[in-house]
């Protein structure tokens, strides 16, 4: 009997969907400010500036980056406190191990890279060197979810799912500059390990207009409403707030519950809000619909015995396209207009 032939490798591109003619109107960009509506206030480098301030009176704070200090705003801290910054080179495994070693010696290390590299490449090191020993390392990672058009190599669409599964790790997805500033202070005081999604550069100030204070493990009701309950995290809370305004013009009243702590999830507040009957519950996240906030909320409702009509806004369980962010956000249904349209459709079902 002859062995089966090895298949030829000449039909690679046929596995993928057909490419369209290029649209030259939009260029690929990773600017966070471009995610928000035009004309909104922004705050420069909220993470880097807050960390530099904290370090003025916290000798235990040190910073490490794997060749991405400029792209995580840690360079602001490094310029203010050069002797407390460790450039670890393009080596995410030793970035996490060395942060663990510094934490063992009493320091509070802030380690930065992109979310894809922390979640995918350095997982074992975060898990065994940091989380298993409950060390106070703060892993702060830029380019969460779909905030770059560079394609799957840079798009961390599954980081929350990966990190949520790690025992002992606090997982945060802040909304804006205000949230990032407050969360940075909170995690510096938190005794355990933290994974925080990072917004960098000129970051919109959205929550400054609301009576809001970040607390680890707490979801906060930003506005109340009678028809829809949005439960959102990260930049999607900017979008759900704007979608709520758009829907209000069509007579749809929306509540927005912002849940920047993905783990431990604020189950009590989520159940209390979802139990107020008659509202469509919509979870919205800048993350795959698999394993993130949406599924965490769904499980919470089921286990808490709360029955509600539940829908998810999030990224598909696919490797996403490259391109300009506005194009991609429209394509994957996470723009303000797309959210409002989905909600109207669901309300008619």
């Amino acid at each position, binding site marked *: 009997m002859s062995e089966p032939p090895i298949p030829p490798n000449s039909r690679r591109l046929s596995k993928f969907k057909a490419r369209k003619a290029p649209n030259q109107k939009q260029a690929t960009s990773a600017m966070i400010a471009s995610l928000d509506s035009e004309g909104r206030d922004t705050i420069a480098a909220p993470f880097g500036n807050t960390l530099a301030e904290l370090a003025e009176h916290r000798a235990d704070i040190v910073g490490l980056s794997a060749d991405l200090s400029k792209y995580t705003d840690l360079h602001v801290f490094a310029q203010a406190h050069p002797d407390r910054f460790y450039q670890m080179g393009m080596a995410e495994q030793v970035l996490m191990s*060395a942060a663990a070693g510094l934490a063992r010696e009493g320091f509070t290390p802030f380690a930065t890279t992109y979310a894809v590299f922390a979640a995918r490449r350095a997982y074992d090191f975060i898990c065994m*060197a940091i989380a298993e020993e409950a060390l106070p390392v703060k892993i702060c990672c830029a380019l969460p979810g779909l905030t770059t058009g560079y394609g799957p190599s840079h798009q961390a669409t599954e980081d929350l799912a990966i990190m949520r599964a790690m025992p002992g790790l606090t997982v945060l997805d802040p909304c804006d500059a205000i949230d990032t500033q407050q969360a940075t202070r909170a995690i510096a005081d938190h005794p355990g390990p933290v994974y925080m999604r990072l917004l960098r550069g000129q970051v919109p100030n959205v929550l400054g207009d609301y009576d809001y204070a970040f607390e680890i493990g707490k979801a906060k009701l930003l506005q109340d409403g009678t028809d829809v309950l949005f439960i959102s995290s990260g930049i999607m809370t900017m979008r759900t707030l704007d979608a709520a305004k758009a829907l209000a013009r069509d007579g749809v009243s929306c509540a927005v519950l912002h849940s920047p702590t993905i783990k431990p999830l604020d189950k009590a507040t989520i159940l209390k809000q979802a139990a107020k009957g008659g509202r469509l519950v919509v979870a919205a996240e800048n993350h795959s619909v698999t394993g993130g906030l949406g599924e965490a909320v769904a499980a919470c409702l089921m286990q808490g015995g709360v029955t509600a009509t539940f829908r998810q806004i999030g990224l598909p369980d696919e490797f996403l396209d490259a391109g300009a962010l506005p194009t991609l956000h429209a394509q994957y249904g996470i723009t303000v207009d797309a959210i409002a349209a989905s909600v109207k459709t669901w309300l008619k079902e």
Partner: protein
Amino acid sequence: MTQATNTRLSNTSLARRAWAIRRHALLMAQVQGQGYIGQALGAADLLATSYFHAMTYRADDPEWEGRDRFYLSIGHYAIALYAALIEAGILPEDEIETYGMDESRMPMSGMAAYTPGMEITGGSLGHGLGIAVGAAMGLKRKANPAFVYNLLSDGELGEGSTWEAVMSAAQHGLDNLIAIVDFNDQQADGKTTQALARGSQSAQWQAFGWFAQEIDGNDLDALVSAFDVARNHRAPCPRVIICNTTMCKGIPFLEEREITHFVRVEADEWTKALAIHDANKPE
């Protein structure tokens, strides 16, 4: 401070310590009927040199800030480190019979949360040297003169993360870091030199900016000299001692076995091994 700090021993006394470490390990392996006894017997001399010649620590205060840190990357060598910690008085001898049992402080793979003196959780290979890099940075930041020792295995040199840590330690000038490589040329599937480790080990480490020594890791005189040289070397670079060791050292009928990574021994053979060992007690 009233606690006693250990003192450095002569080479003759070290031979007695190494013999005792091997005996504790044999007794623990007998409890389980199997295990990583080959590694424990092979590493007993370098552990005796670490704990009774090179390192500073307080047996009654394993977390004393002034101690030299000993990081065991290779979790399955736990039996060897438990034996050394028992001999050092950090763990009580009467816990030998609990090795690997439910609720024991001495699980089969070393974990920081279980055992006094077990500084890190090993087992997932390629972690220890990176953690040691961070700890060495932290000690320098605190102006603490302690050393960080990391015992890693030859097989662990196959992990890419080990080499990230090797480069990082040199880049940051970590002269308070001493890596000890137990080169016994055995890993789970066979010979390490037939897997990834090739060529001159010391040349590889030197090329990365380390001060490297390569010695017979079962020769106490060579070990004492190498540890002294490593501690006192003046260049601002990390140090490595590559210890060529023999698995199951001291028990000839086990040394001759082909598969020594995880040794299974018949019940009567433990008695035989202990009898051989007891007959070789140093003066």
